[in-house]
């Protein structure tokens, strides 16, 4: 990212240097605030960040809001429900209206893939993609990489040689796509594990291996990332039943025991407990990083906001 970039639209736009810069900045912001009474830093005083959310979200919206507030920016939250969107206003008109009110950055979540890219063509401020349809969710990939680096690489450098299994509903997952792009940039080896019906067309071109068999992928993995089964995006039957899915692709205690000693279990949330991940795995104090991921999300989003908005306007 660094001084040259104005937007964060895709994890694929980041090169190794830019990605490591974001992770390093996040570490430093995290250390700067650790143990403090006043969890606030001044660099974005007087800047306005708009959270433009067309899709339901708890953690991402809250996380961006906290991140912006901790850097002293003013935050406007906008959700499609209860706004002019329900009167039929287009994305473009809504964006131009918000910009006319002086937004320096727009954080957008939208159910259409490509919405963030379109928005970036219309507004002058920075655009941060907080999830567009089944396409990308770059800050989630960054917080996942941050969590892996902290747990398994001492919080420094890249992720060279790290073996990551991403398991489940890859087809509907913007988290998977962004993670594959970013992890490849950072030097990790990724294997996607899913039933054939939940792998997207063209997955062969992704910088990742694929497998249909979870049991064989687990022993060699340092990280297992479980994806949420996105039933709200499923109009057809992608697997026979929830029970069958859980048996073939769910992470339970038996499967967790196949992992190496230091391996960690991740999930972007929200979880379907008992479906893709068993409750005892999700709550495992040693391996599960699910709560940590949420905490790290604030630091990583602070880093992104600082790097996009902290310097001079061009």
């Amino acid at each position, binding site marked *: 990212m660094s001084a040259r970039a104005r937007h964060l639209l895709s994890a694929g736009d980041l090169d190794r240097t830019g990605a490591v810069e974001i992770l390093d900045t996040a570490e430093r912001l995290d250390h700067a605030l650790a143990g403090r009474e*006043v969890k606030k830093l001044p*660099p974005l005083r007087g800047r306005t960040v708009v959270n433009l959310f067309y899709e339901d979200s708890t953690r991402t919206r809250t996380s961006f809001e906290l991140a912006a507030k901790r850097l002293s920016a003013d935050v406007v939250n906008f959700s499609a429900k209860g706004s002019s969107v329900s009167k039929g206003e287009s994305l473009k008109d809504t964006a131009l209206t918000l910009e006319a009110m002086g937004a320096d950055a727009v954080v957008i979540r939208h159910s259409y893939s490509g919405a963030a890219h379109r928005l970036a063509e219309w507004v002058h401020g920075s655009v941060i993609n907080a999830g567009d349809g089944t396409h990308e969710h770059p800050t989630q990939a960054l917080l996942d990489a941050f969590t892996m680096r902290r747990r398994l690489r001492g919080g420094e450098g890249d992720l060279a040689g790290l073996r990551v299994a991403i398991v489940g509903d890859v087809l509907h997952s913007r988290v998977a796509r962004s993670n594959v792009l970013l992890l490849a940039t950072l030097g990790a080896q990724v294997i996607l594990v899913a039933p054939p019906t939940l792998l997207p067309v063209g997955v062969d071109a992704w910088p990742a291996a694929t497998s249909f068999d979870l049991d064989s992928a687990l022993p060699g993995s340092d990280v297992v990332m479980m994806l949420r089964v996105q039933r709200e995006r499923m109009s057809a039957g992608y697997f026979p039943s929830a029970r069958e899915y859980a048996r073939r692709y769910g992470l339970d205690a038996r499967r967790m025991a196949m992992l190496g000693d230091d391996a960690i279990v991740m999930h972007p949330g929200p979880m379907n407990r008992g479906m893709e991940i068993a409750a005892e795995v999700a709550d495992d104090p040693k391996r599960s990083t699910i709560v940590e991921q949420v905490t790290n999300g604030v630091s990583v989003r602070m880093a992104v906001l600082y790097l996009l908005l902290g*310097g001079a306007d061009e």
Partner: protein
Amino acid sequence: MPSAALTPHDGATSVLDAHDVGRIVDRMAHQIIERTAKADPGFVLLGVPTRGVPLARRLAARIAAFDGPAVPVGSLDTTLYRDDLRLRGVRPLAETVEPPGGITDRLVILVDDVLFSGRTIRAALDAIRDLGRPRAVQLAVLVDRGHRQLPIRADYVGKNLPTSVGQTVRVVLAETDGADAVFIDDKVGAR
């Protein structure tokens, strides 16, 4: 690893060598013991990155070597508190590490390599305010080159160096640059 910072390029004059820097740090350590350590043994040293941090560590080591107290050392990044943050491209952050035991109710001695406009120290004072409430704050600098833009002065000065505004003072240290020295560059340097 010798770095480019070591080679005095065109227009650079070496004003202090490694021997001078060592002697100055020793003198400052003695001064801190005489003026502060006896009256206020619970003080901490807070280095301003980049080169204030190794300087603070050296001062702590010399104070201990001269039978002074064991002094906790921390580092304080001032980047996010600078008043010129918006005037240039975004800057990388340096590490902030609170000294063991924190700073609240203690005497804090800020340590930096060069005192110039005073704006870094103003930013450091703001940053300290967010970390806690020290009993008092003092300032130790290796070089005071003048041209203050704010009402700030140092309590401990290693070397007063008369300069003109257009010159650049470069401090290099073994920890960050491979060797100790201070240069004056006539041309506007990398800083």
